[in-house]
């Protein structure tokens, strides 16, 4: 039960009045005229010295009446009758957790920054009526998703972001997507300084290894190259005898300088010319591993692949269960992703549904980069957004609007007034039904 005017409960102090009256007033019974007091000996009872509660039942009724009146004046709102609380009091909170590479570093307590963020996010959940948690390695995309969810929610809204806030990870334009009436809280997770980033890439017959060390605003890069043919990080399924277009596509992909290194998972690119491509397509199932989703997300963002798909025309049709990577000029699926295999030997397959060598080349390059993973140059940035900047972006959460019973029209004071009236009636009946103070003379003994 809520009260729109809880300050009215100070009137409950008035309950002391009937208690004091019952204690202090003497029972004003009429004295009995008697012929002589000469024989009335013994202990004399003095009412003035006895402070005991009289008529406890009447006192309870009177106190209960007073409390009912005070409760009615406090504007009670019985939630059970009216249902959920009004929107002005409901808090909806979107929590964004930065899952970029820098957040994988361990904090001082030995846990990763992501786990620390998740723990703090869980602690916030009880204080909100509705909560949605979004974990993503890009704050701009995650905040956009959170803002879209908040925008459609009534009541009070709040965005909470857990991140190490590397410089460049968040910009004011990103926060502009959050409605200005919504609260924003940017909570920093302290992470240690990143280790130097390194990467290698193959270009032709040479392999280039690069090492970057970021110190403050200075970046020192060292690199070396070696004559070595870098293996592709992805498997290209093009048939027993790849066509000249397929070989050209592979060469084109390698010429872009694909990252070298061992792929953590098996990734394959299936050409439309590959033997059994249709069979592989039919046997593919929806992706169901987090690394697959990450790789698919990475490939989907490849702009070269997207542009190449727009210039192609799909010749194969992908089952609806597969993930769409890119569409052709007719909006048909140009590249789709599916899973094959089982257990630890699963393979992420990218199906190129057109014979356009350009699209095949772009898919091979994108898949290779997703398989090895980027060195995360941006994750090497040690500098973070200042506390002053974060404080400037913080916005207070709108306060809970007081429920006005009159405006809301949902006050249940009428029930308490009815209770008070009922108690008054009961008290009146009880008071009048008390035995008369005039004694009734009983049968008397006759003194011989």
């Amino acid at each position, binding site marked *: 039960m809520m009260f729109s005017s809880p300050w009215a409960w100070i009137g409950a102090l008035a309950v002391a009045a009937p208690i004091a009256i019952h204690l202090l007033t003497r029972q004003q*019974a009429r*004295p*009995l*005229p*008697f*012929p*002589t*007091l*000469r*024989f*009335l*000996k*013994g*202990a*004399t*009872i*003095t*009412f003035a010295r006895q402070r005991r509660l009289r008529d406890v039942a009447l006192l309870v009724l009177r106190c209960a009446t007073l409390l009912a009146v005070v409760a009615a004046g406090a504007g009670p709102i019985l939630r059970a009758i009216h249902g959920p609380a009004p929107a002005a009091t409901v808090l909806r909170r979107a929590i964004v957790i930065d899952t970029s590479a820098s957040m994988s570093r361990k904090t001082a307590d030995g846990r990763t920054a992501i786990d620390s963020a998740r723990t703090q996010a869980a602690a916030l959940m009880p204080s909100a009526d509705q909560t949605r948690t979004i974990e993503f390695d890009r704050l701009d995309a995650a905040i956009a998703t959170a803002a879209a969810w908040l925008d459609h929610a009534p009541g009070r809204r709040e965005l909470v972001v857990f991140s190490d806030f590397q410089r460049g990870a968040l910009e004011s334009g990103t926060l502009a997507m959050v409605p200005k009436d919504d609260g924003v809280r940017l909570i920093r997770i302290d992470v240690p300084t990143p280790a130097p980033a390194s990467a290698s890439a193959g270009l032709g017959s040479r392999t280039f290894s690069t090492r970057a060390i970021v110190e403050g605003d200075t970046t020192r890069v060292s690199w070396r190259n070696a004559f070595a043919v870098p293996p592709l990080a992805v498997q290209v399924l093009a048939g027993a005898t790849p066509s000249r277009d397929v070989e050209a596509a592979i060469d084109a992909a390698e010429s872009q300088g694909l990252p070298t290194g061992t792929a953590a998972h098996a990734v394959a690119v299936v050409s439309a010319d590959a033997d059994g491509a249709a069979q592989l397509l039919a046997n593919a199932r929806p992706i169901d591993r987090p690394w697959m989703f990450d790789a698919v997300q990475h490939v989907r963002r490849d702009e070269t692949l997207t542009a190449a798909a727009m210039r192609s025309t799909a010749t194969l049709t992908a089952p609806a269960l597969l993930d769409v990577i890119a569409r052709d000029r007719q909006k048909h699926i140009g590249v789709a992703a599916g899973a094959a295999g089982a257990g630890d030997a699963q393979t992420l397959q990218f199906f190129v549904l057109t014979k356009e060598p350009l699209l095949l080349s772009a898919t091979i390059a994108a898949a290779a980069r997703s398989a090895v993973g980027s060195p995360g140059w941006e994750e090497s940035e040690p500098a973070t957004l200042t506390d002053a900047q974060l404080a400037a972006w913080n916005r207070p959460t709108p306060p809970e609007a007081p429920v006005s019973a009159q405006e809301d029209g949902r006050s249940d004071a009428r029930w308490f007034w009815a209770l008070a009236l009922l108690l008054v009636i009961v008290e009146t009946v009880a008071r009048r039904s008390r035995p008369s103070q005039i*004694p*009734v*003379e*009983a*049968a*008397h*003994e*006759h*003194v*011989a």
Partner: protein
Amino acid sequence: MPLQPSVVASLTDLELVARLIVEGVRSGPHRSPFRGFSTEFDQHRSYRPGDDLRHLDWKLLGKTDRLYSRQFRDTTNMAVMLVVDTSASMGFPQEGMSKLRYATIAAAALSYLVVTQGDSAGLMSASGEQLTYLPARGGRAHLRRVLATLDKLQPAGAWRPARAIARAADLLKRRGLIIVLSDFYDDEDDTLREMKRAGRRGHDVAMLQLLSPAEMSLSYPGDREFEDLESGARRTISPAAIGREYRASVATFLEEWRGRARQNGIDYALVTTDEAPERALRTYIVKRGSRLMPARHASQATA
């Protein structure tokens, strides 16, 4: 069947009440002890030289051949003075038949009885410093005055019984009967002294002590504050806690008065207001009937 106090209390005509009570008394099986105005033969005795020959019983001489003189009892008119206590304590209880009302009815009945027998009745009542006095006379007119005065009596203040009794004894021209109707709460020693003095002066003194059942039993529920009707003093007690002791004290008080009366030759009767007045008066009159005759010291009309 005697009239119950409730019936008597409902009757406003005091003369009617008195008459009904007296008729009830007279209709009882007991021989009325009252004797009217006459010269009555008392006894025979042997003739002595010098006796009045008019009183010689010639018939007895004829029978016995002996001389006997007749002795007569010269019954003079009996004067009865009713002394009624009209103090405030006689106003208890305030509901139903009060002691004063009962005393008034009893006094009225006694007046009616006495006057209709040819005797004289008077009234003395005292309330505070005010004395109400009617001399002892006979006749219907005087009886009505007595009844009218009795009907107007109201309880108020305290009284000095000794003064009222002393005045009554003084105002009785000849030896008579003084009947005091009171609860006898006040000035016990002085009251006894004056009653004894009245007795020494030749008057017969009788006391009808009137109490109500309520003041004898103190049967009240809970804790009550009691107020003395005469002094106004108050006391709060628990009747249940002291009831036994109270009743013992009252019994002792009554017994003391009974003893004092007995020791001093004073007629005593305890009357409670729940007793039918007719029965109470009959009991008193029949039991003490011989004492209602005045000191039969009168002239011995003998030969």
